[in-house]
């Protein structure tokens, strides 16, 4: 069993199962504690010792291309605007209009394909996908079903085992293809008057659909992969990929099967609005399917919606049988031809040429490269670099502080990740909104490094700085009298006073119980209101006690 459990997610799946991720509580018969029970339950075993389950998760991700105008028309792309104000005649599907491809969208798709190690198809085709819906005025969507713009790539992402961030494991998911397609409009359902209101502002905006192979096996892997993709897209600038604004939409395909058997029936989960919900939805669906199958039921090949309030998936209204999209070639668009340095025609208008090699040369550093550079340059741990890149603007903040302080980067990182970041999270602020700038932070850390204040005092100063009253760290230190006592004689007096007042403890130390010394140090600290250097105090106490 252990060997089987090691495949697939391995340890990660064990933990996801154990926490239950908001799904139906697995019954105790569905779990079996491993010998190494410190890690929690092992891969779930069915009742009466049935074979374990292997979950399979594939993702379809739609990323809205960051461009000024839409994919096939010159209407503006903007998130919030008066209804139907960003709509051209083509977007409204008025007869006689034709699609004209936006060059920027092609470049964005090529950039993304290159960043995901895909082969770029130098000739790709456009197709029509037919279905009826109020927000699709043409009755079809222009997409790339036969020959998409990029195929066969891969995405590497990292997961931390044990939630401690002390161990990171790298995984890869294969990218089946990336295709260009149109977005649909938005429909608002007015149930009271049983009508649907349609806003076509979003209709025709360029999308990149990234299809991932079903290489993942739990919610955490899916979430990590999507997070990494999000960072890559934001670094490239091909999409702003903000899930809350609908610029990144994820649908998950989930199924379970026994090892060695063919894949089970899959369900599609939609309406996932954040990365956290993605993990929850996938984990819930896996558990639901396992429970259903173990109770003798079957899984329908259906589409389910994730209800974030209840933390579960519910069936969407049944689509009878499989959808028939009646794909046909888009007759108004000839094949899209891309060039590289070798195949570049000599006398063609530059504006009409998309050169893959030219784009490749100008790709920025991907997140994985940036992380490696941070680790090498500053000597921080890989998990630190992950945390830095995970928060928008934090890397820049960190590098600015390091530039302006004598404190070693390895120490600075602790202050940034443990102290500053937790303040930001507590107050729900972004790095850009931080009341403490990198300059102030550097000043504070310099005071600490020069041993003018203690670490505890530094934290107090930071709390004061957070109020954003415009004082410098030095001013706060002087105001609150937080400087470390530099006068040796004064310190010695205090130490002596403490020793005199703690006869029992002194006897214990002299008898050999050295741990009690910490209590004395603590008492000195209290006497000096945190203004004594603990290392120095320890030395002084030890000297006195040995006399």
């Amino acid at each position, binding site marked *: 069993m252990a060997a089987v459990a090691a495949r697939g997610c391995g340890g990660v799946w064990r933990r996801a199962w154990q926490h239950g991720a908001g799904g139906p509580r697995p019954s105790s018969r569905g779990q079996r504690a491993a010998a190494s029970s410190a890690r929690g339950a092992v891969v779930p075993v069915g009742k009466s010792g049935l074979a374990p389950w292997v979950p399979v998760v594939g993702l379809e991700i739609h990323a809205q291309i960051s*461009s*000024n*105008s839409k994919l096939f028309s*010159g*209407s*503006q792309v903007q998130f919030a605007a*008066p*209804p*139907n*104000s960003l*709509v*051209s*005649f*083509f977007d*409204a599907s008025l007869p006689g209009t034709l699609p*004209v*491809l*936006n*060059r*920027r969208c*092609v470049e964005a798709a090529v950039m993304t394909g290159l960043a995901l190690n895909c082969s770029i198809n130098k000739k790709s*085709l456009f197709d029509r996908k*037919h*279905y*009826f*819906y*109020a927000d699709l005025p043409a*009755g079809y969507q222009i997409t790339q079903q036969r020959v998409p713009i990029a195929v066969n790539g891969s995405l590497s992402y990292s997961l931390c085992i044990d939630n401690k961030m002390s161990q990171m494991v790298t995984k890869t998911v294969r990218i089946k293809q990336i295709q260009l397609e149109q977005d*649909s409009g938005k*429909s608002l359902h007015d149930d009271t008057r*049983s*009508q*649907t*209101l*349609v*806003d*076509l502002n979003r209709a025709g905006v360029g999308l990149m659909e990234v299809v991932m192979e079903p290489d993942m096996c739990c919610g955490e892997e899916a979430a990590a992969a999507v997070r990494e993709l999000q960072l890559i897209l934001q670094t490239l600038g091909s999409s702003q990929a903000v899930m809350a604004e*609908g610029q990144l*939409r994820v649908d998950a395909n989930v199924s379970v099967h026994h090892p060695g058997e063919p894949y089970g029936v899959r369900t599609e989960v*939609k*309406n996932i609005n954040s990365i956290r919900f993605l993990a929850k939805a996938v984990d819930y669906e896996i558990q639901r399917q396992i429970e259903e199958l173990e109770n003798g039921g079957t899984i329908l090949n259906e589409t389910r*919606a994730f209800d974030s309030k209840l933390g579960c998936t519910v069936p*969407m*209204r049944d*689509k*009878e049988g499989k959808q*028939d999209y*009646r*794909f*046909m*070639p888009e*007759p108004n*668009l*000839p*094949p*899209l*031809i891309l060039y590289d340095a070798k195949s570049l025609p000599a006398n063609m208008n530059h*504006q*009409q040429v*998309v050169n893959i090699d030219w784009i490749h040369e100008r790709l920025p550093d991907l997140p994985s490269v940036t992380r490696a550079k941070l680790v090498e340059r500053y000597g921080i741990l890989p998990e630190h670099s992950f945390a830095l890149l995970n928060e928008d603007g934090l890397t820049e903040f960190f590098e600015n502080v390091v530039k302006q302080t004598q404190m070693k980067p390895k120490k600075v990182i602790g202050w940034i990740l443990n102290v500053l970041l937790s303040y930001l999270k507590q107050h729900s602020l972004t790095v850009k909104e931080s009341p403490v700038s990198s300059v102030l932070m550097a000043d504070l850390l310099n005071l600490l490094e020069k041993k003018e204040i203690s670490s505890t005092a530094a934290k107090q100063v930071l709390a004061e700085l957070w109020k954003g009253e415009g004082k410098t760290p030095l001013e706060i230190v002087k105001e609150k009298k937080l400087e470390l006592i530099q006068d040796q004689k004064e310190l010695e007096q205090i130490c002596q006073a403490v020793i005199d007042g703690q006869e029992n403890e002194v006897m214990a130390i002299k008898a050999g119980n050295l741990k009690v010394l910490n209590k004395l140090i603590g008492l000195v600290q209290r006497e000096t209101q945190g203004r004594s250097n603990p290392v120095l105090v320890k030395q002084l106490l030890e000297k006195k006690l040995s006399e």
Partner: protein
Amino acid sequence: MDPDTSLLFQAPFSSYCKHFCSLEVITSICFPRCEVHTAQEQLCEGVRSPSGSWVLDHLEQLALVDFRDAEGVERLRKAIQFADQLHEVNTDGVEPMDSVLEDRCLYLREDDVTEGNCTNELLKNAREKVEEYFVAPPGIVLLIKTS
């Protein structure tokens, strides 16, 4: 094209179609990848027996078309039969031509905002509107998408 059969693809036939239906859609219904002959046979049966009528129902739902009566179904069957003539041509080893524009370059447009801002014009033709939103006609078979 024989004048008789050409009429199939003009007004009389199209009149059976509600909005959103085009010739291309009908012929692509008729060629769902590999079911042509079965579909035609089933259609012939479908007129007479209830068991074959699922194909008709399916087609009606897909294309929002109403074949209405036996005459309508007969026209459909003739249309399929007409299109079936394509099978008489041997296309082994021949690359399909998907566009008469195959020699043309696909024109690439600069990413500039040049259109939009014509809300009033767009809404002029709408039968119903609510505060600058189009109102979707009731009764369309809605395929739920939440996004």
